[in-house]
């Protein structure tokens, strides 16, 4: 059974007939957005994090049809006209990228975080709490925290 849904994906309007059983992860990957990774399929690892109306969501356990009328952001949409976003740049500069599998999901969580706390004083504990839904096995999180801090510092300066 399919249903027709419409949503904004990375600033582009989409109207799709989707199988009602499919997760948003599956539908996005079918659309070629392979930055959205499945590390567990049950919302444990966060590798499939996308922003739905600017809130980080595990797309593996979010039905595609719930996306009807929503605005979705994946990491593919974060770089425009060859320019990567400040968060993407911060991940590179801080050395927060290793195998890269968790990176797209992490960057989306950080993007939402940085937009939410723009101009506010943020400590490492808050960064930790709001990134706790994304797992990384390569970095020990240290450089990811540094990347997020640097984004906030840049904004406040």
């Amino acid at each position: 059974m399919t249903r027709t849904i419409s949503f904004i994906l990375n600033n582009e309007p989409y109207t799709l007939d989707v199988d009602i059983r499919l997760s948003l992860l599956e539908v996005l990957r079918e659309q070629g957005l392979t930055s959205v990774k499945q590390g567990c399929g049950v919302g444990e690892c966060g590798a499939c994090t996308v922003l739905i109306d600017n809130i980080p969501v595990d797309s593996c356990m979010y039905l595609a049809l719930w996306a009807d009328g929503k605005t979705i952001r994946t990491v593919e949409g974060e770089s425009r006209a060859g320019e990567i976003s400040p968060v993407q740049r911060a991940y590179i500069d801080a050395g927060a990228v290793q195998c890269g599998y968790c990176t797209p999901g992490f960057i989306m969580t950080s993007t939402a975080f940085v937009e939410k706390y723009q101009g506010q004083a943020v400590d490492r504990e808050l960064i930790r709490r709001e990134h706790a839904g994304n797992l990384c096995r390569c970095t020990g999180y240290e450089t990811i925290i540094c990347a997020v801090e640097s984004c906030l510092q840049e904004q406040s300066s």
Partner: protein
Amino acid sequence: MAVGISTERKDALAKVSGRAKYTEDFAVKGMKHAVYVRSTIAHGRVVRINAEKAQALPGVRAVFTYADVPQIKFATAGHPYALDRAARDVEDRLLLTRDVRLEGDEVAVVVADSELIARRAARLVEVEYESYPPLVTPEAVLAAGARSIHPGGNIVGAHCYEVGGDVRQAEEEATTVLEARYSTAMVQHCHLENHIAYAYMEDDGNIIVVSSTQIPHIARRIISEALDFPLGNIKVIKPYLGGGFGAKQDVVVEPMVAFLTRKLNGAPVQINLTREETMSCTRTRHPFHGHIRGGIDDRGILQFLDLDVVSVTGAYASHGHAIALAGGAKTCAMYPRSVIRYNARTVYANMPSAGAMRAYGTPQVAFMVECLVEELARKAGIDPLEFRLRNVGRSGDINPLNKQVIINHGLKDCLDKGREVFQWDKKKAEYADRKSGTVRSGIGVACFSYASGTYPGNVEIAGCRLILNQDGSVHVHVGATEIGQGSDTAFAQMAAETTGVHYDQVKVISTQDTDYTPFDTGAYASRQTYVNGQAVYKASLEFRDKILSYAEEITGRVKEALTIAGDRIVYSAHPQTTVISLRDLAVDSYYHKDRGGQITSEVSYKTRTNVPVFGCTFVALDVDIELCKVTIREILNVHDSGKIINPLMAAGQVHGGMSMSIGAALYEELLVDEVSGHIYNNNLLDYKLPTMTDMPDLDCAFVELIEPTASYGQKALGEPPAISPAPAIRNAILDATGVAPTQLPMSPKSLFRLFRANGLL
């Protein structure tokens, strides 16, 4: 100059923009999906199997059982082929098995049009078992009359050595002798990308396998062995890889997808394991159970260490006894002045198979050594740091096991640097009165030694090819694999350093394809920077010479007076004068009708040295006695890994290793029921993989002793950071509470028992 600075990762842009393609990202039209039928019991035998209902499900293309696969036993460990038969890995696997050796063993496989259909069909396959009592603990496995899990018995391997003197004699000279039993847990790699591979055929004679593997060339050989199919007709492609940590230094699903595409007339077939399958049905870290004795004399000098360890390899050998061998051998360089006796056995058990995992047996052995050393220091009333400084090796010492001179023994340098950065003495004084009450504080230190590759245990072969493109840019082909550790970037830095070509103009081809990639055995043993670094250096020297020779041919300027500076050939003594641009030279080499040719160099090089690396961890922590909870306040790793090629990425390697060891110290444990063999927590919710909230700030430092045997002064770094944090944490808990943990993980559950037994609760 490109070596020694934090150049931007070559794959960073592809990865942050989400465009880097991993195995699952190559959508192949008509892909079939295969799912294993896994045993529901841990030990037994299949009596009857009925796939009729599964076969009847629409969309199911085939079901194969243990009766349908080649009866060729093969070994899966990602080691180079050994000419010496006795040194080869244990051949104990079939593609599918009738004999069940762990919960989740592979008795059949279903192929369907979608993964969903395949999973549903796999559940419809009816399997009747004859059950045997699962053998989970070493005691059960080694008990007289215990059933053999494999035909050859339950002991996979054993060895014993006594080096640096005689333990009995050393014991007579010792004034204090202590002994203890320690054990480490089964932990899992938890690479974010699960095991995945697919295979297809473009004609009847050639199989193409795309896999998330650390070892493409070895995978090709093992597929060939498992299927009795010509090696030259198998191509293995390794795209970007989402973490491996040793779990993918093993051939796991590759032979099966190759088998299935042959059976399905060349159709593309993929196996994409679930997280649950990856955690319990691929590979884990070997749990070790050890008894260790050690003695010191009245000057606080370590006289001997005497270890008896049992390493549990689980249902299948995989890397088997090589882990216990390496763990002992790599630890010998730490205290090379004492007598060391090491007696190790590796046993099968009806639980998940253990294979390679970051630092390869060394975290387990170093944990035991550094726990006992701590107790000896305390017993003698000597500061634990002072005790180590007194006893660790020095440059010029002989490694008692391999008899090699340790030219740079950087452990003392690391301890000295750590003492200063961590402010050990100040903290010790500060923490002295925080040893009572609900929350107690302590500091701890622990050391390690490791190696730079596997020589002389295995051949250390690496290959590198450089190509000058028409635009003056350089392509580097290496068989060494980028798995996230940053090797592509390090090799680009090395090539830029030696050729003189600008780093931005050097591109390392990240995808390995065994049809054209130079031979290399892959990512393991922290070997690539040290071993492949030699090949890159030699190929770069040759490449530079060819370019300068051609510059002489074109321009008539003597090549000895020339050098390469970025994108130009210049006079060495007058670099501001361009003799010819690299681009013009390249175009000429390709297209001039009467001279030149494509400028390339290619080197296959066998490294015949292996140098130890050293380091240590300093940690300060709080223990909440009532909550049985440990909070790390500060943690620092200090490493002697020779010249650091890329400081930012090196720090990243250290952080990652530290976090793995912190996880193993405090949280992580794959739980197997000792009676049923049932695995309780093969998922990322119940298996306590640290999240960002569980991980403290991580600090690291390096002492850069330039390694004289290496092209750029470099030594190994990838795995070693995962060794010493766990024993340092344990020693800090001992410092804080006065009670000595003996097993990992030191989770609230285990600390509760410990504190209860010692009257703290």
